[in-house]
């Protein structure tokens, strides 16, 4: 059974999420909080399998919780968002999140969505796909500055992103590329991880450019 930590400031939504997770036979809520600092303590204390986190917390940024979860390791971070818009989701993915969950997702679907992430899947929208493509194109420019090994997308991962950006769903992509639905999902998750690595590398690159660190020494 996978443990889930819920950090959401809206009480009703938090309760709804708690209820939905609790209903799923393979999930249990290990803790919940409406605050950043408390969430951080709970994260360290429980080391859950899944972190469900809202970004806009009253006493801090949910991104820091995702970062912490990434540092602790073996925690799948899922950002809870109203619209699933690229502004929120991209920040979370860059911090290390591997998925997002719409706040008004049906109660019966919430547990399934979490399990999908735990099983290697990852949700993605056409808008986020476009942003990912744009991001990795920029990444190549940075690589050209002799920055070091940055993770580039494989051809298949690129194909999947392009199809998603064109509005195809996972089944349609699986059919087009003659691969399984699960494989499509895995590709997206890998892309997310690469984005996280890439964003960290970019941070290192920026730090070096600013003279904060010296990686060549």
């Amino acid at each position, binding site marked *: 059974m996978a443990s889930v930590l819920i950090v959401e400031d809206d009480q*009703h939504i938090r309760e709804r999420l708690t209820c939905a997770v609790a209903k799923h036979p393979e999930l249990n809520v290990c803790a919940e909080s409406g605050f950043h600092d408390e969430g951080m303590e709970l994260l360290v204390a429980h080391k859950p399998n899944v972190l469900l986190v809202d970004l806009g917390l009253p006493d801090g940024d949910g991104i820091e919780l995702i970062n912490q979860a990434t540092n602790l390791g073996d925690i799948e971070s899922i950002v809870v968002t*109203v619209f699933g818009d690229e502004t929120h989701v991209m920040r979370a993915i860059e911090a290390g999140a591997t998925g997002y969950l719409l706040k008004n997702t049906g109660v019966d679907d919430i547990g399934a969505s979490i399990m999908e992430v735990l099983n290697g899947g990852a949700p993605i*929208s*056409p*808008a986020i796909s*476009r942003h990912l493509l744009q991001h990795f194109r920029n990444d190549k420019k940075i690589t050209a500055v002799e920055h070091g090994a940055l993770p580039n997308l494989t051809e298949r991962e690129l194909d999947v992103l392009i199809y998603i950006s064109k*509005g195809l769903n996972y089944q349609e992509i699986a059919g087009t590329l003659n691969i399984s639905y699960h494989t499509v999902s895995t590709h997206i998750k890998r892309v997310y991880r690469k984005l996280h690595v890439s964003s960290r590398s970019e941070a290192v690159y920026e730090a070096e450019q600013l003279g904060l660190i010296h990686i060549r020494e």
Partner: protein
Amino acid sequence: MNRQVNAAHLIQNIIFALLCIFFAGCSFTSHSNQSSLLFKDADFLLKNQAKPPKGDNLAWQKVKLPDLWDFTHPDAGGFGWYRLKIKLNVPPNRLWGIYLPRINRDAAVFLNGVLIGIDAPIENKQSNSWNHPLYFTIPNGLLTSGENLLYIRLESAVHSRGRLLPFYMGADELLRPTYEHNYFFRVTLSQLICAFALTMGLCVGLIWVIRREALYGWFALGSIFWAFYTTWFFVRSMPLPLSHWIALTNSSGVWMIGCMWIFVGTYIGLKLRITKYIILTYCAVTTIVLWNLPQQMLLDALVFAYLPLFALWSWMMLLFFKHWKTKQASFDKGIVFLSIIPIVTLGSFDWINLAFHLQYPYLLHYSAPFIFLLIGWVLIRRFTTAIREAEVLNLELETRVSKRETELKEAFETIHVLERQKILKTERERIMRDIHDGVGGQLVSALAMMEHHGSDKSLADTLTFALDDLRLIIDSLAPEEDGLPELLTMFKYRYEPKLKAQNILLYWKQEELPILGEFSPQQSLQLLRVIQEAFTNILKHAEANQIHVVVGYSGEENRAAICICDNGIGFSSAQQKQGRGLGNMRRRTADIGLDIEFFNQQQGGACVRIWLNSETHTAKI
């Protein structure tokens, strides 16, 4: 700039033409007079009196002409008288004259006791007539049959090379042309050369003022000194005492040779740092020495003054040959070398003439047209080339500046656009964040609350619709230039789970779409609302289980369109005419300048087709 080049070209061509004329003109030769009396013997008497000496007790000496006082009367000065007895059987019946090709320095001619000519331009003042041929006509009746007495009075200072060369008497129509020809060659031509040298010097001096290139300066100086030097050959009435005039004109000669030497040396690229100063110092010292020497020493001093300079020119020729061997030869340098030859040869000739008291005409100054035309042509050619190069360079610079201006302008515009995009992006993110954390979050919270408390479903539907509309607003704020394809794919992405939940299959085919020019976020939102309303109508009224969406070119008009069809019950005629939902869709599409049509399919089901503007090109989504 073009005018300058054209003017320079014109001058260059004129000089070339003059060179041709000069070479052609050199072929003419002086003619001699063979029908006149030539006098080569005379009686000579030194006597300081203005009128012909008379009396049998005078010690007349027989002399041969030319009579050179520096040899025959080395210490003589003042008046020297030449007497000739001319016996005529018959007096001439036409006008006769006496032609004296060369005398030094002033002469007066008496025939049978009558003064028939005097060459001094100002009475009682020394003149500088040594290079002027003299011609005097004999009044009718003065010559008689029998013996006629001709007296020539020659005036010369001591050691000033007084001389009388053989002279002629004869018919005016025979002697005058010879005199005029000789006068032209020795006086008029010298005047022309002087004017030419001065003009050339001033013109090149003007170029020097513009370009400040030493080469032009030395040539201009040399030309101007050349002009002064030439005055020695034609100015009779001097503004200075004779000794100073000799010193001044011949010092100019020294400077002329020195400046020209420096010019040629500079032109062919010799290193003249020390040599140049030595030459200039020599010229200055020579000028001072000559100015201060007494008249009787001046002419002999000139021999020594010119000697080192001509030696220098000979050395220059050797240097030139050496330079020619070691460095790459050019056409212009060849021309300059050609101009050296007359300076060396004619200058040497004149020096021998002077040093050995010879009676040949001085020739160096005649080489001016040849030299100046050649060198002037080279310099002006060099100048025009420089102007042309400057013109090309200017053109290139102008092109580069223009290109850089364009680049800067483009960069500025790009920066402006990027800044605007950044501001828009930041603002968009702020609005999205506000909506997300504010009304969006509250709507979701309200939905969660209602779900928890099991409230009225219609109220929940209204909230869900409000949330969907907010999502449309968020999506329509996409910053892409042509965001319609993305908006449509996002719409599909968002609506697909809802249709799936109602067991409705969605078939979505999206082809290439045109870029819709000024399609603002507001227009995008209106379009999405129309599409959303079409979907809502299907869900609520159509009783369909399939929806087909085709985005791309459609119909015979080949216009882009979004076509939404279902397999439901279709529109009723009342719906098409008065339906509020369809009316709203018509209004919204009209507001954003698009066309919409509603129709039923033959095989069943309804269709909504939204025509997009198609005047622009297509973009891949």
